[in-house]
């Protein structure tokens, strides 16, 4: 084990796979000499000459060319600086990258990682703060990965690169500096395997990305009030580890889902539907969702604080079940 930040762990995951497989390359705006807008890819340009490419501001071509390169045998890690800009390359992602294999009757494979970052809390306003994972989970053929800890960040990045399918890997701005133990050497976290971030017996809280940490803080506070919360981090939304969630419900019989994305058509609705369809008999209380409201992300810090789900809102939702 080695102490690393989340950002360093992502880099370590990319480095591990670039060393292992010369077909892997990294491209995006300012990813090379500058090391990316958030410093995540710092130094890789020197370690892997010719395989870290600074692109023009051209999201369409960043993802479009990655699809083409992947279809003929390379394994691109293509960065979109903020998840908010994926709208620019949406066609390349949802009509090209993920349709190729199915539409061509299994002829093609597109092992592409779209690496990007989401999230609020830094007063970056409506076009630089969003959580849009539900857009991506609604695209069959695409996998959606959202790590919450340094170890997961490394292992999931490596697994995403090794996966033969298009994967969107979404980091979170609030987590970049978070430290933690990360396994040294080759390390992979399989896609589709949830992690119990805190075991408990009275209520299941499902949360991902930054919200895992807010859920853990809430669980800590709830413990003092005699409520034992289990915090489950699915880590990847597609594929979703339904079994882990249902197994937890079999124990707690209560479900609270927390996400930073806005409420309507958020992925929390999908998890609630899974629980209702496949775990109805396990539940003995209504399902609760703690989410951002259905508005764009406001700039002013007082409004953004009201917008974001936090420990207090999670505690309140849990207590309403008891």
């Amino acid at each position, binding site marked *: 084990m080695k102490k690393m930040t989340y950002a360093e762990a992502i880099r370590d995951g990319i480095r591990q796979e670039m060393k292992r497989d010369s077909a892997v390359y990294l491209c995006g*705006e*300012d990813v090379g*000499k*500058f090391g990316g*807008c958030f410093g995540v890819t710092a130094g890789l340009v020197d370690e892997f000459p010719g395989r870290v490419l*600074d*692109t*023009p*501001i*051209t*999201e*369409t*071509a960043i993802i479009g060319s990655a699809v083409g390169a992947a279809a003929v045998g390379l394994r691109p890690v293509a960065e979109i600086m903020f998840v*908010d*800009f994926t*709208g*620019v390359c949406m066609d390349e992602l949802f009509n090209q990258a993920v349709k190729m294999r199915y539409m061509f009757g299994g002829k093609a494979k597109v092992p592409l990682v779209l690496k990007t970052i989401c999230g609020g809390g*830094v*007063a*970056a*306003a*409506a*076009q*630089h703060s969003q959580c849009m994972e539900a857009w991506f989970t609604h695209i069959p053929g695409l996998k959606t990965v959202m790590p919450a800890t340094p170890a997961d960040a490394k292992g999931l990045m490596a697994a995403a690169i090794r996966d033969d399918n298009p994967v969107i890997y979404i980091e979170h701005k609030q987590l970049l500096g978070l430290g933690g133990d990360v396994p040294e050497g080759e390390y992979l976290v399989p896609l589709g395997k949830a992690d119990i971030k805190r075991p408990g017996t009275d209520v299941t809280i499902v949360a991902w990305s930054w919200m895992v940490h807010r859920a853990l803080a809430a669980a800590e506070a709830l413990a003092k009030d005699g409520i034992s919360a289990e915090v489950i981090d699915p880590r990847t939304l597609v594929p979703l580890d339904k079994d882990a969630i249902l197994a937890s419900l079999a124990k707690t019989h209560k479900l609270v889902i927390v996400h930073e994305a806005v409420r309507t058509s958020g992925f929390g609705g999908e998890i609630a539907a899974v629980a209702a369809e496949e775990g109805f008999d396990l539940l003995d209380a209504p399902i609760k969702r703690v989410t951002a*409201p*259905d*508005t*764009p992300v*406001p*700039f*002013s*810090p*007082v*409004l953004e604080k*009201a*917008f974001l789900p936090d420990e207090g809102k999670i505690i309140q939702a849990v207590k309403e079940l008891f």
Partner: protein
Amino acid sequence: MKHDAEFLRHLYRRMISIRLFEEKIGELFLGGELPGFVHLYVGEEAIAVGVCASLTDQDYITSTHRGHGHCIAKGAKIGPMMAEIFGKQTGYCKGKGGSMHIADFSVGMLGANGVVGGGYNLAVGAALAAKMRKSGQVAVCFFGDGASNRGTFHEGINMAAAWKLPVVFVNENNQWASTTPYRTTNNIEDIADRAKGYGIPGVVVDGNDIFAVLETAKAAIDRARAGEGPTLIEAKTYRIKGHFVGDPEMYRTKAEVQKHFDENDPLKNFAHKVIGAKLLKQADLDAIASETAREIEQAVGEARQAPYPDEAELFADLYVEGVK
């Protein structure tokens, strides 16, 4: 020089307003008073002011993430701009937009934009509306050298050219797209060369010389107003400040930046010319500068005192209520 003293004072007031506003914003940001992040327009003042001088309040502009200068040049007020950047209720957007999203539709400023290359087609649409209504209005789209590589550049300019829309595309080639030097992502020296591919005029102008910008922009705006279609102007300049305030600028040397500033500061250029031609005195410029500095101090004081938005504001202005 054919400009009268009153007009020259106007130009200087707008340019020095931008310069001092930006310097104040930089200082406040580093002092921890401003949330989010801010991009400054220092060194590019002659472009926005030189272009907007030939526009009326009825004409439109679209702007960028580096939008404070465009706002001031188009006639937006410093008070509500400052309050917006502080995230206060009295700001132009009630604190919901911040630095990257200031808009003042009352003077035709259709908004700064957090998405690089997001402005082209908005300007094209405003110009289309002007043409359909035969209103005689013109739209100007400001965009960066980095933004010139977005696909929207092609789509917007092509449609505007095909339909002869009254729009002027003003490229601010400040040599940098965040940390990336212009020539590492473009295979041509002049973005204006691309105009040929759309069958419209493409003009390179010294963006640090407001008189050159004025003349070039006026010709393009007149042409658009006369129904002859778009022009692509490339104003060459240099980004004096970091990409954002706090940028460590590891990708260039201080000496390089200083050299550009010493040789090309658009405000110094202006002063040199108007004083040399005996149209204004240094004392005239100093008076305008100190008046502007006072105005900015007052805006800061008011923004500090102003309330933050009420939490209920979170849900306001999402949809238009009611049906017409």
